[in-house]
C-alpha cells in the first residue's frame, strides 16, 4: 500500500488524488441501482439472490437484491426501510426538551455525535450561550464516541472477513469506553447527557483519572490491531483494490466522513468548518488516496489515534475547570438546580413550566452539521415559535453512504460484497430513521 499523495490536479484544493479509475462508475440509469448488462439479461446464467435483510453481515436490516453471474456481481439494488421508526414524525409531537432522547437512538453507535447535532441546532435558534466547560466535555465525549464507533466498525468488519480475534480485541476496548460512559453519564449508551444549554450533570470526580488510563492505553491497543491486521496476508488480499470509489464519484454521490477521506478528498468538518472548540486543538486529518476497502479501514484506524490525541487535550483543559458551570444559567430554557426547588417559588414555577410546557424557540429555520464518526451528520430544524419543532429532519451519513453500494460493487465478486458493505459502515438506524 503506497501512502504517497499525488499533487492536486484540480482547481479545488481538497481533492488530493482522483486517479483511482478513469471516468465515472456511477450507474447511468439510476445512480443507486446496478443494472444487469443487456447481454446477460436474458441468459439463464444470472441468479438473483436476496442478501439480507436478516443477514449477520448487513449490520442490521439492509437488504441487497444481488444478481450473480457465477461468482461475479452483475447487478445490485439496495432496499432499505426495515428499521424505519418515524423519528422525525414523533419528534414533531414532543417538546424540544423531550426530543433530546430521540437523536441518540437514530445513529445508535455514534449516539453522542447525533445527540450533539440536535442540541446545537436548538441552541443556535435560541441564540443560547453554552459554558466553555460543557463545550470541552462535549468534545471529549464525542471523540470517545468516535473511537467507540470505529471500534464497532473494525471489530465487526474484521469478523465478517474471518478475523474473529479482532472482534474480541475491539470489544475489549469498547467495554472500557462504555464503562467510562457509565461513570460520567450513568448510562452505557444513549446517555441523554447533552442537554440544550450544556450538560445534564457536573463531571464526576473520578472521571479524569479513569479517562487518562484509557487514553494512555489506547495507542497500545491500536498497535495490537495493526499487528493483527496490517501484515495479515488474507486481510490485505480481501481489502486492497476492492470496492474502489473515486474522489469525483464520491463527491457526486454526496459521500462524507471516512468514506470521502479514503477516496482522497481532504475534508473534515472538524477542521474545515470548526464547531465546539475544534479550532483550539491540534489534530491531523488522515487521508488515503486509494478509495478501496483497505483505505477506509486505514482512515478509521488513524482517526482513532487522532481522537485519542484530542481527548488528551480536552482532559488537559477540563482538569483545570473544576467548579465552573456546566450548563447555561437561563431559567427560561434550563431546569433550575434541584436544591432550589424546596426554597424558591420562582424556581418551582420555572421547573413546572419547563417540564409540562417546554421552552419556546423563536421562529426560524436552521441547518447544523457536525462530523460524526460516519460523516456529515446534519439537523434541519424549523420552528414556528412554539414549544415543539414544526419540522425536524436529520441528514443521515449512513443513508448517503449506502447510495454508493452500486458504484463500489462494479466488477466485484460476491465475497467482496461483504467487505464493501462493511467498509461503508452504515448503521441501519441512521439510514432508516
Amino acid at each position, binding site marked *: 500500500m503506497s501512502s504517497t499523495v499525488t499533487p492536486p490536479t484540480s482547481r479545488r484544493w481538497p481533492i488530493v488524488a482522483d486517479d483511482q479509475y478513469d471516468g465515472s462508475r456511477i450507474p447511468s440509469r439510476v445512480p443507486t441501482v446496478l443494472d444487469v448488462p443487456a447481454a446477460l439479461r436474458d441468459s439463464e446464467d444470472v441468479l438473483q439472490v436476496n442478501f439480507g435483510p436478516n443477514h449477520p453481515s448487513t449490520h442490521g436490516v439492509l437488504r441487497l437484491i444481488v444478481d450473480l453471474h457465477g461468482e461475479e456481481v452483475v447487478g445490485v439494488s439496495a432496499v432499505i426501510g426495515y428499521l*424505519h421508526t418515524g423519528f422525525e414524525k414523533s419528534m414533531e409531537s414532543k417538546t424540544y426538551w423531550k426530543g433530546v432522547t430521540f437523536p441518540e437512538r437514530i445513529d445508535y453507535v455514534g449516539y453522542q455525535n447525533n445527540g450533539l447535532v440536535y442540541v446545537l441546532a436548538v441552541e443556535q435558534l435560541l*441564540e443560547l450561550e453554552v459554558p466553555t466547560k460543557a463545550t470541552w466535555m462535549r468534545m471529549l465525549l464525542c471523540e470517545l464516541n468516535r473511537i467507540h464507533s470505529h471500534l464497532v466498525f473494525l471489530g465487526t468488519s474484521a469478523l465478517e472477513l474471518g478475523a474473529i480475534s479482532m472482534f474480541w480485541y475491539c470489544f475489549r476496548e469498547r467495554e472500557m469506553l462504555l464503562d467510562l460512559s457509565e461513570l460520567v453519564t450513568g448510562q452505557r449508551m444513549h446517555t441523554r447527557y447533552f442537554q440544550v444549554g450544556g450538560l445534564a450533570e457536573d463531571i464526576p470526580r473520578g472521571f479524569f483519572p479513569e479517562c487518562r488510563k484509557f487514553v494512555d492505553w489506547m495507542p497500545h491497543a491500536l498497535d495490537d490491531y495493526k499487528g493483527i491486521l496490517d501484515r495479515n496476508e488474507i486481510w490485505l488480499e480481501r481489502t486492497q483494490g476492492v470496492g474502489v470509489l473515486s474522489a469525483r464519484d464520491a463527491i*457526486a454521490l*454526496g459521500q462524507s466522513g471516512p468514506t470521502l477521506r479514503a477516496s482522497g478528498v481532504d475534508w473534515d468538518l472538524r477542521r*474545515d468548518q470548526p464547531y465546539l472548540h475544534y479550532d483550539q486543538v491540534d489534530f491531523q486529518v488522515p487521508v488515503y488516496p486509494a478509495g478501496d476497502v483497505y483505505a477506509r479501514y486505514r482512515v478509521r484506524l488513524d482517526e482513532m489515534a487522532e481522537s485519542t490525541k484530542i481527548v488528551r487535550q480536552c482532559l488537559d483543559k477540563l482538569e483545570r475547570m473544576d467548579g465552573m458551570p456546566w450548563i447555561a444559567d437561563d431559567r427560561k430554557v434550563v431546569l433550575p438546580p434541584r436544591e432550589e426547588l424546596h426554597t424558591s417559588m420562582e424556581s418551582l414555577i420555572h421547573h413546572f413550566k419547563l417540564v409540562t410546557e417546554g421552552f419556546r*424557540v423563536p421562529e426560524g429555520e436552521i*441547518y447544523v452539521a457536525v462530523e460524526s464518526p460516519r460523516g456529515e451528520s446534519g439537523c434541519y430544524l424549523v420552528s*414556528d415559535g412554539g414549544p415543539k419543532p414544526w419540522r425536524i429532519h436529520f*441528514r443521515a451519513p449512513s443513508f448517503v453512504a449506502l447510495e454508493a453500494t452500486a458504484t463500489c460493487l462494479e466488477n466485484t465478486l460476491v465475497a467482496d460484497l461483504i467487505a464493501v458493505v462493511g467498509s461503508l459502515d452504515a448503521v441501519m438506524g441512521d439510514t432508516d430513521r
Partner: protein
Amino acid sequence: MTEWQRLPGYVSHRDGPEMPTVTVETERIREACEHARDELGFDVCVDLVATDYLGWGGKGVSGYIGTASGRDLMHPMTQGLQTLPELKPKRFSISYHLLALRQGAPRARLRCWVDEGERVPSVISVWPTCDWHEREQYDLMGIVFDGHPNLERLLMPEDWEGHPLRKDYPIGGEPVRFTDEE
C-alpha cells in the same frame, strides 16, 4: 447585483445565521442547481428536505422565550401577546442544502415552493446523490419529482397509503390489523 441574482429563475434571497436561503422558481430548480454547481462551485448537495406548512400560523404563538440575557419583556412573543409566524407562499417548501468543498466551507440553501399536486424537476442529473433523497421526500411527504427514473417508496412499505410526514397525517393513524371490525 449579487452572485445569487444570476441564478436561473431567481426570486429572492435572505441571509441566515448559518447560510443564505435563495428562493428560485420551481420549474427552473434544475437549471439553478446546475448553475450553483458549475459556476458557484457547490460540489455537494448534502441534503434535500421538504417541509409541510399546512396550518402554519393557524394559531397564534404566545408565551415567553428565553434569550441569553434572560426574559425579554418587549419581545412580541412574550407572554400575553400573540404573534403569527410569517406566512408562506405555498404549502410545501423544498430545500436543497449545498456545500462547497473549499476554504471556509460555504453553504447555501436553494429553496422552491410547491402546492399539492404540483411537480418539481428532479436534480439527479446534477447530483446523483439526490436519488434517495428525492425518493424519501416522495415517500414521506408526497412530493412528485419529474424526471426521476425510479420514483418509488423508499422507507415505507410499497403498498403504504398516504405520506406520513404531512401535517394532515395523524400520529397513530395507521390501520390496526386483526381487530374485531376487520
